[in-house]
């Protein structure tokens, strides 16, 4: 079986039980790799956090507008129909994509044991990407969006983003090409898949907007396909690659099963790209398309089960580490969110459920489950791990990390749960054809208010995180060596 034949051997993430001299050599090599990667990776991560702050502000405004529609409504650029896509793009293409690319570059350099050359190319890529994204968001706010959900950024700006991405993707491919570590670890598979998929999907979708021959619902389908690829293939693959790296690394034991890892990967790569049409379930499309995507979503359970089992079994007996290690706490939270998002996604794709939940805020809850509770939390975990290795000092304050975690976990969790309940409530109420629509929407007021409260928590967490990151950039922290932990290992907190 191909999958089994491709299973990587447990060399890469395994603890190195080598002689001290060899360990020192390895440590020196890692330090050299980190030093070579530090410039571009810090640039990506720092900029990603700026986008996260912008997205937080936009997300908060759009949340307030749900319960107070008049909020900032007099000003065209702040109207809900412009703020919401600006938020989605700032969060997805700003924070998520940039942090994902930065972490991906660092992981590839580490796992392929390559010292990055010409880091300026990566920085140039990030600049192009962000110039394009900034122009795109300015045009969205200025009422110049393409008007296609998920592809709002106008073509000229998208081209700049794609050029920037190509530089990053090319460097990723070169790192892989020059790797000195074979066979490739499972994280590398996911990263290569992510880096390859994105430009084709993004490029083709934007090209289709420019082609006059693509009209009608085919265009909507392509947009849904691209949006699904971005979230469910590109970002998900980077998030899983990161989790597969961090969890074994921090708890210092190899991944539980390489066969599970490889089975999961092949299920993922085969099915995830076929799920796009669920976004148009019940819509004006041939039934076979939606059926195909529902079937792919159901089959994707193979990946969700294998990845979840693998990560959780790797953690087995080491769960106390969530009390000690910030990286583990964030990453394990993300891994569990991935499992929940996968199962919820499967259930919600079923026609009988989708009938009720389609067109409701439940969709937004699902997106946030994957994009925030899974992906972003794993990225936070990765940043807590990577940054000390790049700047040479440890995080200043475990209290600040704790507060960031509470803000992100409780705020994010609360937001998702409230959006989900609100979606279920309004969806069920709409099943009564006599019920008055506007009243059903207004009945969700308490959830919308709660969601805004959740945003306040999220914003506090992000502000603390950004401040902490800034301190690290100025090398204000604990002396290097021992990681900043919530509690020393050995002292159990209950």
């Amino acid at each position: 079986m191909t999958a089994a034949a491709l299973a990587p051997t447990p060399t890469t993430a395994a603890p190195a039980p080598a002689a001290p001299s060899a360990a020192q050599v390895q440590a020196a090599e890692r330090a050299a790799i980190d030093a070579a990667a530090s410039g571009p990776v810090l640039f990506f991560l720092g900029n990603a956090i700026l986008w996260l702050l912008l997205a937080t502000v936009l997300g908060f405004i759009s949340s307030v507008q749900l319960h107070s529609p008049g909020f900032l409504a007099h000003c065209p650029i702040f109207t809900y129909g412009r703020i919401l896509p600006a938020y989605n793009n700032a969060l997805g293409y700003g924070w998520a994509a940039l942090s994902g690319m930065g972490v991906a570059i660092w992981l590839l350099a580490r796992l392929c044991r390559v010292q990055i050359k010409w880091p300026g190319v990566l920085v140039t890529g990030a600049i192009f990407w962000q110039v394009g994204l900034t122009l795109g968001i300015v045009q969205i706010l200025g009422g110049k969006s393409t008007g296609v959900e998920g592809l709002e950024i106008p073509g000229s700006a998208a081209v700049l983003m794609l050029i920037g991405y190509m530089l990053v993707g090319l460097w990723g491919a070169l790192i892989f090409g020059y790797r000195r570590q074979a066979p490739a670890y499972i994280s590398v598979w996911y990263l290569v898949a992510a880096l390859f998929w994105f430009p084709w999907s993004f490029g083709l979708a934007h090209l289709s907007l420019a082609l006059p021959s693509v009209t009608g619902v085919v265009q909507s389908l392509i947009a849904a396909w691209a949006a699904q690829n971005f979230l469910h293939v590109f970002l998900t693959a980077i998030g899983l690659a990161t989790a597969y790296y961090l969890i074994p690394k921090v708890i210092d034991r190899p991944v539980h099963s390489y066969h599970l890892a490889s089975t999961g990967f092949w299920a993922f790569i085969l099915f995830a790209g076929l799920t796009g049409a669920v976004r148009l379930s019940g819509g004006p499309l041939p039934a076979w398309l939606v059926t195909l995507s529902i079937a792919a979503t159901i089959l994707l359970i193979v990946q969700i089960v294998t990845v979840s089992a693998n990560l959780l079994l790797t953690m087995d007996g080491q769960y106390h580490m969530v009390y000690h290690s910030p990286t583990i706490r964030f990453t394990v939270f993300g891994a569990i969110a991935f499992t929940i998002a996968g199962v919820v996604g499967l259930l919600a794709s079923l026609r009988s459920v989708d009938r009720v939940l389609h067109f409701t805020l439940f969709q937004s809850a699902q997106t946030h489950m994957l994009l925030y509770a899974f992906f972003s939390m794993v990225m936070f975990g990765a940043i807590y791990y990577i940054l000390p290795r790049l700047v040479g000092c440890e995080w200043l304050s475990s209290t600040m990390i704790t507060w960031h975690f509470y803000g992100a976990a409780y705020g994010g969790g609360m937001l998702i749960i409230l959006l989900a309940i609100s979606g279920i409530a309004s969806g069920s109420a709409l099943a009564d054809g006599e019920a008055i629509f506007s009243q059903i929407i207004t009945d969700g007021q308490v959830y919308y208010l709660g969601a805004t409260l959740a945003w306040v928590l999220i914003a506090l967490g992000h502000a603390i995180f950004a401040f902490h990151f800034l301190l690290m950039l100025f090398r204000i922290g604990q002396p290097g060596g021992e990681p900043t932990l919530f509690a020393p290992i050995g002292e159990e907190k209950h």
Partner: protein
Amino acid sequence: MNRSLNLFAGIIGSFALSCYALVLLPKSQLGTLPPQTAEDEGKIVDIYPVKNVGVEAGRAVYKAEGCFYCHSQQIRDEQNGTDLERGWGVRRTVARDYIFEKAPVLGSMRLGPDLANVGSPKWRNEQVEEHPKYKPARRDAAWHLLHLYAPRTIIKDSNMPPYRYLFKTVKIGQAPADDALALTGPDAPKAGYQVVPTERAKQLVAYLMSLDRSHPLKEVKGSAPEVAAK
């Protein structure tokens, strides 16, 4: 090297499959869908849908303001919800309804009602706390303009933001303008002034009024027993 080859083959193959199944195949199946035709005195003529270039400007306003983040334009059938019962349409919408639209605004969220047929005379008016002085038999241009300017004066529970920037308040000349809004109470402008729609508001309303996808189609069962469309 062999393993990398397998990896690349898998990744490229999976992308090709995804692209084929969800982009190329649907494009070849739906991309050439013609309008519905009918025989008129021996001649085959296109009857529905028709290209309506006159409302493109309004459609652009609809997109620019992001109306589609809260309003869908797709009617699902009885098995998939209460759209028909709710009076949002007389039949479900299908791919043919959108063939002349570049990037149709199907929408994915309903924080407001579906608008696929909002310009149709059959579109149901929700009889809730309508404007006391202003109860049109159907949603005409004046209704839409008033609703855009101050949604809650018409629908008490409306969650729609007021789009005041699509209007301007001007001094009344010799007589009030024909399209001045019939505003009362706190929404009314001060004496001697009137609120009139901008060009963009008029374009948007013209677009909304043009939305009618209730024409019978042969592929939608029960939508038109009386029409002998072929």
